[in-house]
């Protein structure tokens, strides 16, 4: 009874605007002697964007893996969608993952499956949704990211940028409320990178999805933070410069040696006088 009431309360809180959808509270993690996260605390607000910056090996991807439950923190508390994922077993994590979409470095598409099967994987394999409905949803999301004509291709037939976009389509197919992007634009040329950035912006603003973006690509980080998607009266979607209010909904975190050395919006990051951050931004 207590659990039910607690769950109901959590759901009520999460339904409100400005609710904390991901909370890291003094999280620590080390692999043998190497400390990856020394003491990390932050909150992601529903519908907002959190951009996690840092050099390679600074623990950015580890944070995403802890959120999804692929790694367990040594200490600290992690809340995702009202559930303490640091205490959940692998079977119990499945309900948390049902509302999380994750885009891995390089896409991590399943080589042996077609684009259609990749995108609809979760719906085909893990739900009872009728096949016609799954096909419809797959076509819908592929249309959303502009890859409808590639539906029957194998991942090996796609370019790097197309693979990342298919990975986004796979993550959004089951309509998660939180998207986690792990270096989604790394290794892509600037034009393709911008296309992927625009998909992230459209998903956030048109589908109201909260985003956590891990990257060391500053250009992409600032582009996502300073632009917004807008649908005009004819239903045409445009990515335009964000309003000041929208810009404030994108927060940056800078990691160094397992600690957060900066937290704030894009303007504060640019204005920072910290020598390491200045070095990173230059």
């Amino acid at each position, binding site marked *: 009874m207590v659990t039910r009431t607690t769950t109901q309360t959590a759901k009520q809180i999460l339904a409100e605007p400005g609710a904390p959808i991901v909370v890291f509270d003094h999280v620590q993690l080390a692999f043998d002697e190497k400390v990856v996260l020394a003491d990390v605390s932050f909150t992601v607000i529903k519908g907002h964007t959190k951009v996690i910056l840092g050099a390679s090996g600074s623990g950015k991807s580890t944070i995403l893996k802890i959120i999804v439950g692929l790694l367990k923190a040594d200490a600290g508390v992690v809340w995702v969608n009202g559930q303490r994922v640091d205490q959940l077993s692998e079977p119990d994590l499945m309900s948390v993952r049902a509302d999380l979409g994750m885009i891995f470095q390089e896409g991590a*598409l399943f*080589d042996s499956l077609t684009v259609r099967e990749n995108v609809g994987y979760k719906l085909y394999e893990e739900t009872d949704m009728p096949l016609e409905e799954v096909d419809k949803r797959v076509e819908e999301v592929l249309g959303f990211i502009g890859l409808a004509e590639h539906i029957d291709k194998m991942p090996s037939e796609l370019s790097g940028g197309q693979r990342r976009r298919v990975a986004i389509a796979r993550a959004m197919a089951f309509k998660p409320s939180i998207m986690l992007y792990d270096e989604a634009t790394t290794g892509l040329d600037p034009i393709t990178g911008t296309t992927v950035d625009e998909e992230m912006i459209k998903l956030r603003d048109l589908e109201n999805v909260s985003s956590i973006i891990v990257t060391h690509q500053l250009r992409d980080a600032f582009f996502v933070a300073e632009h917004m998607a807008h649908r005009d009266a004819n239903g045409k979607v445009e990515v335009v410069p964000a309003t000041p209010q929208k810009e404030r909904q994108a927060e940056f975190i800078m990691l160094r040696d397992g600690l957060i050395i900066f937290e704030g919006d894009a303007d504060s990051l640019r204005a920072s006088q910290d020598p390491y951050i200045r070095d990173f931004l230059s």
Partner: protein
Amino acid sequence: MLSLLERWLKHAALEAQEYVRLTRAAFHGVYTRPLYRHDIVEQFDQIGAGSLTVVLLAGLFTGAALASQTGLTLDQFGARPVVGRLVSASMIKELGPVLTALMLTGRIGSGIAAELGSMAVTDQINALRALGTDPVRKLVVPRVLAGIFMAPVLTVISDFIGILGGWVIARYQLQVNSGLYWSSITKGLYMQDVWMGLSKPFVFGFLIVTIACHVGLRTTGGTAGVGKSTTISVVAGSVAVIAADFFVTQIMIALLY
């Protein structure tokens, strides 16, 4: 020196622990939902039908070589007509199961380790977990079931083809009458031999696939790591098959003879 040994022992203990954990999870996955039926059928086809050619060739030439070799030895005792009995007993009790298992280790063990290893280093295993799929149920259970049930089927086929290869040599090289060859097989074959020959492939199939899955899923280090895993899987699988053959033989002798 001591720290090196200590590290090696710790590593070996960890590997053994993870292997036991994986096999336990695989067993649990066999009788609980969800069961990925499509993947099970696909693995039965890949491991069973896909290995048929290599098993047929290995069985045929082993039986033929065995008949040639034993024919020479039997001649010294004037016992050439019982060559069929020797070929069948050797094939059914020992060579059929072991050679089929070694062929499967090379073909299936390496394939599984390479496939799962590639999936591990390209984050596909993590992607499966993030999409709410248990990799053990999706990837390991279908392969273990196919390994356990297809290894005996392939062994029986290999035994039969080996005896047939022996007959070709007995008939056309050793000039043994066909009727004599086949009757010496049926007269010399005991049910205990059949049980011995049938029980081994279940164990071998299980070992080959679980070792390959364990090694594949724990692959790290990019493409170089995948190559390393493939080698480890074949070497460990082959040694496990030969060692298990000795122990199963001892157990079966104690139980049946």
